[in-house]
């Protein structure tokens, strides 16, 4: 998985702003319009985060995104769009890192992307787990 953010948006303005703000924050960001072929694009680029801006997609395309999200177990997904549409993802068991149903909030998106990438760094294997030993030491239980 790379440190690329893949943005899917039919709205050039919203998608462009999101891409620009991410790039300005130091992320590699690629903006794609078509949902058809999204699965292949994700497989090809192996992005660290996928952003679906579903506000301008047709109902059938939203269904495709919904199905696609169900297959992205290991890829963090951020969903942007009206609540009436994002609500369709509720109760599906799909894990979404962030659902932004209000106005476009680039600052919030960047913060979440930063958070996701910082976690990836932290989750790299460490030299043994010493938490229990540390706690015992501090509590004088060792």
């Amino acid at each position, binding site marked *: 998985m790379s440190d690329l953010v893949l943005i899917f948006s039919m709205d050039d303005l919203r998608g462009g702003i999101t891409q620009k703000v991410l790039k300005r924050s130091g992320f590699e960001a690629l903006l794609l319009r078509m949902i058809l072929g999204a699965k292949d694009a994700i497989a090809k680029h192996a992005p660290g985060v996928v952003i679906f801006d579903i506000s301008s997609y047709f109902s059938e395309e939203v269904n495709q995104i919904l199905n696609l999200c169900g297959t992205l177990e290991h890829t963090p997904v951020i969903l942007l769009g009206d*609540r009436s549409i*994002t*609500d369709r993802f*509720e109760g599906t068991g799909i894990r*979404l*890192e*962030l*659902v932004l*149903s209000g106005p476009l909030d680039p600052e*919030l998106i960047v*913060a*979440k992307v930063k*958070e996701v990438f*910082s*976690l990836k760094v*932290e*989750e790299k294997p*460490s030299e043994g*787990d010493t*938490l*229990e030993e*540390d*706690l*015992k030491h*501090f*509590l*004088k*239980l060792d």
Partner: protein
Amino acid sequence: MEKHKNLIAIIGPKGGVGKSSICANLAIALSRLGKKVVAVDLDLGASNLHAIFGMRDSKYSLDDFVQNRVKKLSDIIVDTGLKNLGIIRGGDVPVIANMQYQKKMKLVRHLLGLDFDLVILDLAPGVSHNVVDFAIIAKKTLLVTTPEVPSLLNAYSFIKVAVFRRLSFFLKYKKCPEILELLERAKDFENYPHLKTMEGFFREAREINSEVTDSAKKTLSGITPFVVVNRVRTGKDANTGKVIQGLMQNYLGIKSSELMTIREDIAVEKAMARMKPIMTEAPSSPFCRDIEQIALRLCE
């Protein structure tokens, strides 16, 4: 001490772990499940629950009740504007943080008399007796920690204080000074290493009075905190809850009934900045989903 069925205590022994935020939003989640809920800010002297609900002013607070300016606790319940949910604003007068025993008992009586399905207590940080006593009488206690070591240490220490206080009450009630003395020695386990674990303490106590010891051990079975790890960012973070559960079981004889996690979520800060509960601002956020899971578990 009797457990009271509709009291839920939220404790966060280390300040700043998100206890009040969890309390406010959990209260909303429970009210949405059809429960009639009141959230009570018992972080006396440093209250902030009302701020999370965006309430800048309210006519009454706990100060008025504790200082006898109103007769009934129910008179100071503030409507949140949300269905099934009221709050009692905490006091700001520092002296009430160290409430006298009689005043505390009066407060407990009134809390138990509130006509609500659930009374959620947002308790102060630290391990003061006032805080521990409210936690002990509650039917369910949520022990909130973050994955960092200082917070985990404080969480363990809180349960340890609760264990010793409960045993102390019980042994005084049973008029058993020899075991009480042994309990005092167990606090100084560096000099009495065989009393480092509760099992070691009970082993020696049984030699003094087996009947009282067995009953004392049973009283501890009532302490079953739900461990809630807040601001979880990684699987490793989530596992810290298991570590603290293991220490509590091995050294204090306390079996935590549940381990729940709440994901780190930037939307919480955003909602706080707007002085709105995240449950109303961003109900689809990971934080809210995790809170809803906890609410469901509490209703089981």
